[in-house]
């Protein structure tokens, strides 16, 4: 059965390693924070100017001057630092973030990503997404594999306006986990529990590479 958004977040949490600095996009990526194992130490960066983001506050600790990039009230952990928006993106552009987790509307087999604009719909803006995808060393995407009407979102080329070129390293969808190869193509690494390779082939428009036995993912 395909994963729900919590399942995707749980699986992605396994990619977060001890000592990582991590930037989490809005949506499923934000959920990942809830599933990071408690025995590893991670610093979450929020691009509005906070390194060392903690949990949501308890009611009595809410501070309107302390929010994350999703405009949610948050707390800080020990070792946190505050800085301005220029310094925040200085950090991002200079490649200091070990792992960047973003949502996407479409990803291409070349690692292009589209996640900010749908022609004909109200455009809300790209926020920090274009800066993140242009500079982060290690970008992984959390997304639904297909649209509600069954169209694949893992494509040969993106149909929506791009956020960035050749930048996505790995995709975690509700159906599986995929490496994006340097030469192009989605290499299937893991299947969601109960999802068959055939279902994934059906749901993937872009070049899919399936080699050998594909294990079912293990979600702790």
């Amino acid at each position: 059965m395909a994963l729900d958004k919590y399942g995707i977040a749980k699986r992605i949490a396994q990619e977060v390693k001890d000592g990582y600095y991590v930037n989490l996009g809005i949506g499923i990526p934000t959920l990942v924070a809830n599933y990071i194992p408690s025995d590893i130490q991670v610093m979450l960066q929020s691009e509005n100017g906070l390194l060392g983001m903690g949990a949501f506050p308890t009611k009595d600790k809410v501070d309107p001057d302390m929010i994350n990039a999703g405009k949610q009230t948050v707390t800080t952990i020990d070792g946190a630092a505050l800085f301005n928006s220029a310094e925040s993106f200085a950090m991002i552009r200079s490649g200091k973030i070990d792992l960047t987790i973003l949502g996407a509307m479409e990803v291409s087999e070349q690692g292009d990503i589209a996640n900010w604009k749908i022609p004909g719909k109200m455009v809300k803006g790209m926020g920090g997404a274009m800066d993140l995808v242009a500079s982060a060393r290690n970008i992984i995407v959390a997304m639904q594999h297909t649209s509600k009407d069954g169209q694949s979102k893992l494509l040969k080329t993106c149909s929506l306006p791009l956020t960035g070129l050749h930048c996505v390293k790995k995709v975690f969808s509700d159906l599986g986990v995929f490496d994006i190869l340097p030469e192009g193509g989605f290499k299937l690494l893991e299947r969601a529990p109960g999802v068959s390779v055939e279902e994934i082939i059906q749901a993937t428009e872009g070049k899919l590479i399936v080699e050998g036995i594909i294990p079912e993912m293990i979600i702790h």
Partner: protein
Amino acid sequence: MINKTVQHVDEAIRDIHDGATIMFGGFGLCGIPENCIAALQKKGIKNLTCISNNAGVDGFGLGLLLATRQIKKMISSYVGENHEFEKQLLSGELDVELIPQGTLAERIRAGGAGIPAFYTPAGYGTEIANEKEVRVFDGKPHLLEHWLRADFSIVKAWKGDTAGNLIFKGTARNFNPMMATAGNITIAEVEELVPAGELDPNEIHTPGIFVTRIFKGNHYEKRIENLTTL
């Protein structure tokens, strides 16, 4: 000491005029100059070009100036929390220029640092790159981006002194320090205004040289956009 204090918000914004370009500090509703926004609404000046990461929400922040149709153009990275905004944009009353957040921050920082242009990788290969110069450094394409400056910058700080020095609090810092440097006239409203000499020089985020006028703001509402608690 050089004293930048003014007594009232109306004095602080006295020369902001129709058609002015204004930078507003803040990220979402966090760290926005609430007093100046309210006073600008009351003053009723029109055709403003506003540079701000976001555009407020219906009925608060820059949403107040949108409601009274005082804004002609928004320059922002994300404007999605505002129905009035959407309505005016679709009707063609409002112009909007969207800029990647890091590029927006860096362009404003460049404006305040006397750097007329710089290269950044953000936006290469996207529609943001249209008509922009592309240049390859170390094998990676970059876009040429120009500084942003404004007739007026309006920032909100936590503490300030009469010499114009500012200290921000928490993530209310955001765009405020860069904007303070990039206005021809910079107006700072602060929660707490102290005599020069009371702030530790080592803890100041914005040196007073960048601030033209400073006043103590009142009645901060600090509305929370997404209240999330455990």
